[in-house]
């Protein structure tokens, strides 16, 4: 019972309005300070959503899953997803331009004046620190989001999460298939429990 009221409060809390300038600013910052894109952006995305109260952890996970399974650059997909969800086409334009702009500016500067900065020893040092930070942050995001999303969710969610981890992380199958499989299993599971609930009701 208490569980349900807690949940209602969270869902409502995570529906804060987003101004267009704030959407642009957050995604510009994400493009500027993350290296590699894709999954390296997950901890930053989760932080933005939580700090601004834009999306609950569940919605953030939906966003990550959908963006990973659609074609295109995952980071752009994420930006468009959040922008569109919060403020429609204009919002999506702000977040997408926001995430592209740092790359555009930095790459043009590097190509014009700097050459192979990746071969610079100090840049390599910084990159090894940033890679380590990305690993630690994704580890933390896994722990934190997993606790929120899987806690008390029963065998179905846990089994699916563990299988998905093994299939993607150990076997090395493309994550798209895992997401699609998850959708199908979720639909089947949902119709079974709904049917069972309807049966109990009679």
């Amino acid at each position, binding site marked *: 019972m208490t569980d349900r009221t807690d949940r209602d409060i969270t869902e409502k809390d995570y529906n804060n309005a987003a101004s267009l300038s704030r959407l642009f600013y957050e995604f510009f910052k994400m*493009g*500027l*300070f993350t290296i590699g*894109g894709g*999954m390296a952006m*997950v901890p930053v995305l989760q932080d933005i959503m939580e700090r601004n109260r834009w999306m609950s952890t569940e919605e953030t*996970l939906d966003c990550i899953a*959908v963006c990973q399974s*659609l*074609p*295109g*650059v995952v*980071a752009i*997909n994420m930006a*468009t997803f959040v922008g569109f969800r919060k403020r429609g*086409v204009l919002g999506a334009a702000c977040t*997408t331009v926001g995430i*592209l702009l740092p*790359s555009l500016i930095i*790459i*043009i500067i590097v190509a*014009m004046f700097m050459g*192979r*900065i*990746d071969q610079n*020893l100090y840049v390599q*040092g*910084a*990159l*090894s*620190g940033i*890679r*380590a930070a*990305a*690993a*630690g*942050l*994704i*580890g*933390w*995001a*896994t722990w934190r989001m997993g606790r929120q*999303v*899987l806690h008390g*969710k029963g065998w*179905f969610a846990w089994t699916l*999460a563990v299988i*998905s*981890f093994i*299939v*993607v992380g150990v076997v090395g199958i*493309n*994550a798209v298939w*895992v997401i699609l499989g*998850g959708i199908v299993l*979720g*639909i089947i*599971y*949902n119709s079974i429990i*709904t049917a069972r609930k309807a049966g109990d009701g009679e």
Partner: protein
Amino acid sequence: MTLIIQLFLTFFKIGFIGFGGGLAILPLVYQGISAFSPITQEEFANLVGISQATPGPIAVNAATYVGFLTAGIPGSLASTIGVAIPSFILVSLTVKFIDKYKESRLVQGGFLGIRPAAMGMIASAFIFVGESAAFPGGIGAGSFDLAACLMAAATFALAAKTKLGPIPIILIMGACGTALTVLETL
């Protein structure tokens, strides 16, 4: 002008067919660009190195870099906008669809399965990213980076025990990495 249009179309196509982004997209970039503008092995190596070492998504960096090499700033704009438009269209339509049918049993059921699957995917990303941090040259190469492991552990501790957000932590660890290099070269 034709060069600009070719760049736009090439990256537009890559945006539509490239799954997963990042390094997976780079071979497509090479193929697409060699069709109309010769790119040497060395230029491609530069592209791979620089896209990974600069901030922002790898695929976007690669698009901007190739566009700039081929046709200057207008070229980089054309290829970057080209690679982004398919995402923009497909994701907007998908979000619209989800929001419209979010009460339907099918969509709700789908999300019941999508969330745990995504959780497992993020956990496996931890393995991949952790591996590239701990073994910079690949696992077989025998180059275990103890300092990177300590920095990853410190990152976890900072994220768990302090109020620091991910971006300040990334900057701190980048500075630590540079400082270590400075110490090593002394």
